[in-house]
């Protein structure tokens, strides 16, 4: 369980780096804690670009049936990716 938690935190940190590459506006992100995508300064185009960066970086493809909640925040995406074994 601890291993999973550690990996999820690592993924979350990597996601914040990718977020910086996708965002138009570099509003400060909290160093600790979750980041809601809606509040991270992502336009709709930025969001698609962010998801493409994630697919490339982690070598995964998002499932068409992915619940909308999964893409709500950095931590929810990190949990999804950790569960995939990314």
């Amino acid at each position, binding site marked *: 369980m601890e291993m999973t938690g550690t990996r999820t935190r690592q993924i979350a940190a990597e996601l914040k780096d990718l977020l910086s590459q996708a*965002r138009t506006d570099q509003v400060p992100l909290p160093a600790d804690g979750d980041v809601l995508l809606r509040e991270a*300064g992502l336009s709709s*185009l930025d969001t698609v*670009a962010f998801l*493409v960066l994630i*697919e490339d970086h982690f070598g995964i493809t*998002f499932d068409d049936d992915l619940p909308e909640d999964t893409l709500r925040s950095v931590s929810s995406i990190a949990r999804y990716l950790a569960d995939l074994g990314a």
Partner: protein
Amino acid sequence: MTTTVSESATAGSGVASLLQRQAGEHGRRPAIRERGREISYADLCEAVTRRAADFDGLGGEAVLAFQPGRDIDSLITVLAGMVSQAVILIADPAWGSDELGSVVANCGVTHLIGRHGQASTADGPRRERGPAPRPDGVSFGRFTSGSTGSSRCLGFRERTALTAAGTWAAATALGPADRVACCASFHNGLAFNTSLLSVLGSGAQLLLPGDRLLPSSLVRLIETHEATRLVAFPFFLDLVVQQGAQQHFRKLRQIVSSADRLQPGTAAALREVSQVCDYYGLAEVGPCTYNDGERPGSVGRPLPGASIRIIPEPQAGPGGAGRVTVRTGWMAEGYLDGDPQEWAAHLSDGHYLTSDLGRLTDGFLILEGRVGRIVNVGGRKIDPAEIEEALRLIDGVSYACVLLVHVHGRPALAAFIESATLGRADVLRSLSGKLADYKIPSAIRIAAKLPRGEAGKVSRERLLAEFQEG
């Protein structure tokens, strides 16, 4: 099961007749496919007829506002609205409550239609002069993208829409063997002009990728259903190439892109795997040109039934460029949210005065810019003045301007706001629901004082320079 046939359908209206004819000819063949579901031509005809009868039950004067998704049920509703006696207004699904409320007020909307066709009475204030007079024969309404300020509602005849669809299908050699993957939303001209009535009228199949669209999901759709044609906005094709996903497009016969120029690298990568086509169209006049790739840099030759004239324009500069004016056999009948003479003011000798600057070379239309401040973000044309007006109405804002910036190679809207009291979250909260998400600036800079020139005017050049410097 008994099917109630819409009175309009039995009267042989254009779209109803088309669907009945195609149901007879193509029967159980799939007409539309989405993930996990498909509908045959026969079932589509029955579903549209049944839903049109429901809309007829709302009364002959009903005006329906509908925000479609990218799914089969939404398309059934759009078609049923055209077939019924009601007028259906096909609205942007990204609009917030204020924008939709404005449509309800100005267009005399009587009912709001849900995704599955369910009607609810439209409440809210109405314009004092009463609903705008409706031009004769109008059966549906589409909206401008906002390049004339806020979006305007245009009325169209069903039969002329069918003419446009038939013209497009013939010009682009669309046939029953085609399977068209359309990445645009139905309210948008790119989908409406290239992928709805033209596909169904040709006996082809329409493939819908769903509301969350990524290059990977598009590849699955294209490979699963062996698509022959792809319709997508340039910004999405940029992402496709960025991910190398175009390698999966080798079986595509055509890629149709529009609304903005493809980046040279994207165009070159796509041309290695398929034919890359472009066209020019506007909400007011429908599809106008088609370029099958023969002349890169051009949006193509006028379609049969379309006339393009270039008139001198002081802003256009030397070299024969001028204001593009267009007349088509399927153009709008007029505004549904304004007075009849207002539409006439946009016409010159029957040609619609666009905001585009361009030239005709060897019969090919080459676009060279736009009149005024209209900007193009991801294929959506936006007037920054509309956003500035919304920002200036926020308590605590003394000045605001909105500019186009480029970040990570992508265009984006940046708002520069003069306020001593507000923060970014306050601004976003105030705009939420008032503007569609795509109009909300993705970069927001707030300062007690913005840089000004000697005359006291805010210096947009300095704002841009400071933004790009970070």
